């Protein structure tokens, strides 16, 4: 089962290595990882998407919380959070295929960000399923390149983190 953890860490050198190292040495699998600044300059927010049962996720949270550089760990549960991922997709697109691709892009609210004589590049945001579905629909045209940021997430409503 997928779980999403939001981890606030101090902006210290090597902090990403500490987080990633903990996952690998305790044999926890990461599906995706996204890292960026937060509303507080002192802290970086790391969003980790991972697979595991509740016990494993509970243990991961406790182990993360022990790291000196970790300020806070929170699980963002699907019912109380919004998950998003940014995906860039480059597909083969000759003049004939182009209108079809534009149509699918419109349905998915993907933006066309680059067009060449042979390709179209689009950007799309959404949760995992939406992006997977979009890539699936693009496959018949010839997907040349897929670049994904990994999942990032925020709590719904007034919830913090």
């Amino acid at each position, binding site marked *: 089962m997928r779980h999403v953890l939001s981890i606030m860490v101090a902006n210290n*050198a*090597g902090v990403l290595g500490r987080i990633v*190292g903990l996952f690998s040495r305790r044999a926890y699998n990461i599906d995706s990882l996204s890292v960026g600044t937060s509303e507080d300059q002192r802290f970086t927010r790391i969003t980790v998407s991972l697979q595991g049962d509740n016990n494993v996720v509970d243990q991961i949270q*406790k182990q993360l*919380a*022990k790291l*000196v550089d970790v300020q806070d760990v929170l699980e963002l549960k699907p019912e109380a959070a919004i998950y998003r991922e940014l995906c860039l997709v480059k597909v083969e697109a000759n003049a004939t295929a182009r209108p079809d691709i534009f149509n699918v892009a419109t349905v998915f609210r993907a933006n066309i960000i680059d067009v060449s004589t042979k390709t179209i590049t689009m950007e799309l945001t959404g949760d995992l399923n939406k992006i997977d579905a979009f890539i699936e629909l693009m496959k018949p045209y010839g997907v040349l390149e897929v670049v994904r940021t990994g999942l990032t997430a925020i709590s719904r409503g007034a919830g913090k983190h």
Partner: protein
Amino acid sequence: MQLKGAEILLECLLEQGVDTIFGYPGGRVLPIYDALYKYRDKLNHYLVSHEQGAAHAADGYARSTGKVGVCLATSGPGATNLVTGIATAYMDSSPMVAITGNVPVPMLGKDSFQEVDITGITMPVTKHNYIVKNVDDLAETIRSAFHIARSGRPGPVLVDIPSDVAMAISEFSSKRPIPAQYENARITPQKLNEAAELIHQAKKPLIFAGGGVVLSGASEELQEFAANINAPVCVSAMGISSFPTASDAYVGMLGMHGTAVANTLVSECDFLIAIGTRFSDRVVNNVSRFATGAKILHIDIDAAEIDKNILTAYSLVGDVKRVLSLLNPLLQKQDNPEWQTRIADLKTQYPQPKCTSQDLTGQYVIQRLSEIANPDAIFVTEVGQHQMWACQNLQLNRPRQFVTSGGLGTMGFGLGAAIGSAVAHPGTTVINIAGDGCFRMNHIELATAMEYDLPVIVVVLNNHVLGMVRQWQKLFFGKRYSSTNLHDKVTDFVKLAEAYGAAAFNVTTPDQVDETIKKAIALKKPVVINCEISGDESVFPMVPLGAGIGQFITKEAE
């Protein structure tokens, strides 16, 4: 005042109450050694033979005192030589600060001479680590390192100091150290009352004490707790010395080489109170067959230990000493006559083996050591059969009297740790119980013991084999003794010890044991006693891998 980085480091050590450092100099740590020369009246530096010895000595110092042990090494190989010792301390939650020199900041990352990324290397085996790239951050970093090392669940912290930082000047003003902090917010009256209620409901309670009881100084609280609820006490290897071995309630070690009584009781109890322990696989063996009839109450400072190895029904997260001192007044004296009868029967069925002087065995030597040495003596061990015999046979009456590498099982730990213990306890007899394999690993530290006149007694239980590994080969690998015979080229340990200037004795018959031990203790100098024991002796009881902890074997034939 304006000071060099190296002087700031030493001022911070003094601030933290440090007067002892174990270390080894080298190029990139020279500025610190230069400052140590200046501070030589205030800080005693013990020069070891190998950096691993410095780490083990700092660890032994910490384990035998409860204070933070400090070791110091140069960059590159000096730093990597500390790693085994740091990992050993980490596994057993021993408070340590390791300081390493490194190449100057502009040379970092260029594969400079003797450069190594020691913070990267030690990340998984330290509680935290730092590289200090600006001298203005040095003092606060050292203070944090000590605070982290001793707070909560203790552990090693490494601080890497590039040589230009050690030479740079910064403003320094002294600060009082922050006392160690323990997270006790989760111990609420409601949780305590619930725990007391559960304990009162138990008909067959068993207490299982781990190293956390020693670390938190909760031995007295544990004794009161055990008396209150009328429950027997078993221990993990790290929990040995947390409870007086002579007490009627004491049933010995639990686990793979635990006593028959403890292993049977844990399989029969209806309520297990695990205190300051992490349910190591050497205790639990087979998770699905451990304490199957029992509800478990787990008390530990580290929230991450709850439900890590064993799922427990109830837990109290906080400093063990604090938890027990709050819990004790809530408890009523319990009476569980049937359980007491069962315990007494088991003790009769499986009495503590008392060796006679028929054969010169490891257990016999350890029993005699325990009998003859001052009750205050500190016993250190290496790792292997002799260690398990020590766990099973030593009579101990106070915490921190027993120093052993439990979690990492580090062969070669003992002599360094004994040196650290002897430095911390002048005038106390310190005995390192060793096997010949372990002794061969780090006997070089005899030179350190000689140099500083430390009366460490090394008792080598010499069976000319790697006994524990050989025991597994004998029982589980069809007696194929692959690379466990050490006797092909016999090293004369007596001559070896004498080469270092230590006193040395050969013991080949049981009647020589008592006299030699007495002589060694009286000498008050480094002594090696080489005891020629049989290579075929095994450690029993033993629980084979995968078996339930109650399915111990007591003899080879079984």
